[in-house]
């Protein structure tokens, strides 16, 4: 009855080239940096976790949709009123997708007594770099 259960399924250990970041920590760059920052970090982390193409595409698609939505809202209502809050809200929405698709894979990684990489430097870089880029985009679209 358990014939298939007792078949070998453990391949050689997947060696992750670079340690991943803790998915729950990406919420901070999502808040401060907005959707573009969290998308970049989310896709990079999916690659670090050696997740499949689908999970990478899910994060990228959510991020693209959020950036476009933010541009559309900024274009429609013009001006910077509430721009900061909108960036935060869309960023958090994308982070929700990142957390949902990466939580299990990260816990499996943790079970091997392995430590995550520090997000401090990359997070700060993404917040500043992507934040500036996104605001330039908004300025171009609105004007």
């Amino acid at each position, binding site marked *: 009855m*358990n014939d298939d*259960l*007792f078949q*070998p*399924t*453990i*391949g*050689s*250990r*997947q060696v992750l080239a670079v340690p991943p970041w803790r998915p*729950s920590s990406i*919420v*901070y760059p999502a*808040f*401060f940096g907005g959707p573009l920052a969290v998308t970049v970090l989310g896709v990079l982390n999916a690659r670090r976790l050696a997740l499949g193409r689908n999970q990478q595409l899910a994060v990228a698609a959510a991020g693209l949709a959020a950036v476009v939505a933010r541009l559309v809202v900024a274009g429609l209502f013009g001006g910077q009123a509430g721009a900061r*809050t909108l960036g935060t*809200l869309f960023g*958090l929405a994308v982070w*929700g997708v990142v957390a949902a698709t990466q*939580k*299990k*894979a990260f*816990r*499996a990684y943790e*079970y*091997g007594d392995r430590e995550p990489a520090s997000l*401090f430097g990359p997070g700060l870089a993404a917040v500043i770099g992507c934040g500036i880029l996104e605001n330039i985009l908004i300025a171009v679209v609105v004007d």
Partner: protein
Amino acid sequence: MTEHAYAPALMRAHALLAADRPEEALRELAVLPESDAVSAIVFELRAAALLQLERWTEAGDAARAGLAAGGPDPDLLCQLGFAEYRLGRHETAERALLDGLAIAPEDVSLLCVYARLCLEHGQLDKARRLVDLAAAQQPDAPTVYATRVQLAHASGDDALAQRISREFVAAHPENAQAHALLGGTSAARGQVRSAYSGLRQAVANDPADRDYAKAAYEARIALHPLMLPVRPFARFGAVKTWIAAIVVIYGLRALGLYPLATVAGLAWFALCVYSWVVPPLLRRWLLRRWR
């Protein structure tokens, strides 16, 4: 267990192992005469002691020697599988575990170690079926409880993991691992006080285990006064805390209380920066002091 001329020494080693005194068990086994030191049961006890001491390489060698001396045996294969697993040689570990399961398909230890290995490879469904099989044999075995907690945690169900840990503690109040798991699963749900009390109880039950001591110290960091402002994030989760903050800030704005809304917004922003910067620094500082 076969009858043995040196049974008293073996019984003593066995009792020492059960009392969590593996080093003394090893000393007891080391003084056996050479003719008796090569039987499978001696190697099994030696491997068990070495596994408790986390000396994986030697434990694997002892289990292998036992297999060479007495032929295939599910207990020795389980020890070998566990040692190889902890050494990171997962394919060899799986082979040993499956060889053991071929002889004893309902062995609870083999099923649980194999399930744990599957968890680490993200094979949750297979792990669940293995644990279910083990639970059908011995639902109250500590290893079954522990593996069920790990399965729930790996599936992302922290509430279920905590519930099973509570059952584990209720069934085995003397078991240090049960308290450690309850502490760990409480920490995952942001319940800092029960996290600390669970881990402290684990240290009380097994003072020699450094992992429990470190986890208890980390849980104490969460109780530090400087961690007070970020407790809502841990307790309710980032998303719920966020929704509450947005409701408050926009609620004040909707009521026309613009200055208050601005103050709340700035305070919230400051709290977010704080929650990003302070906990890692505090943790690093306190852990350095601990070491």
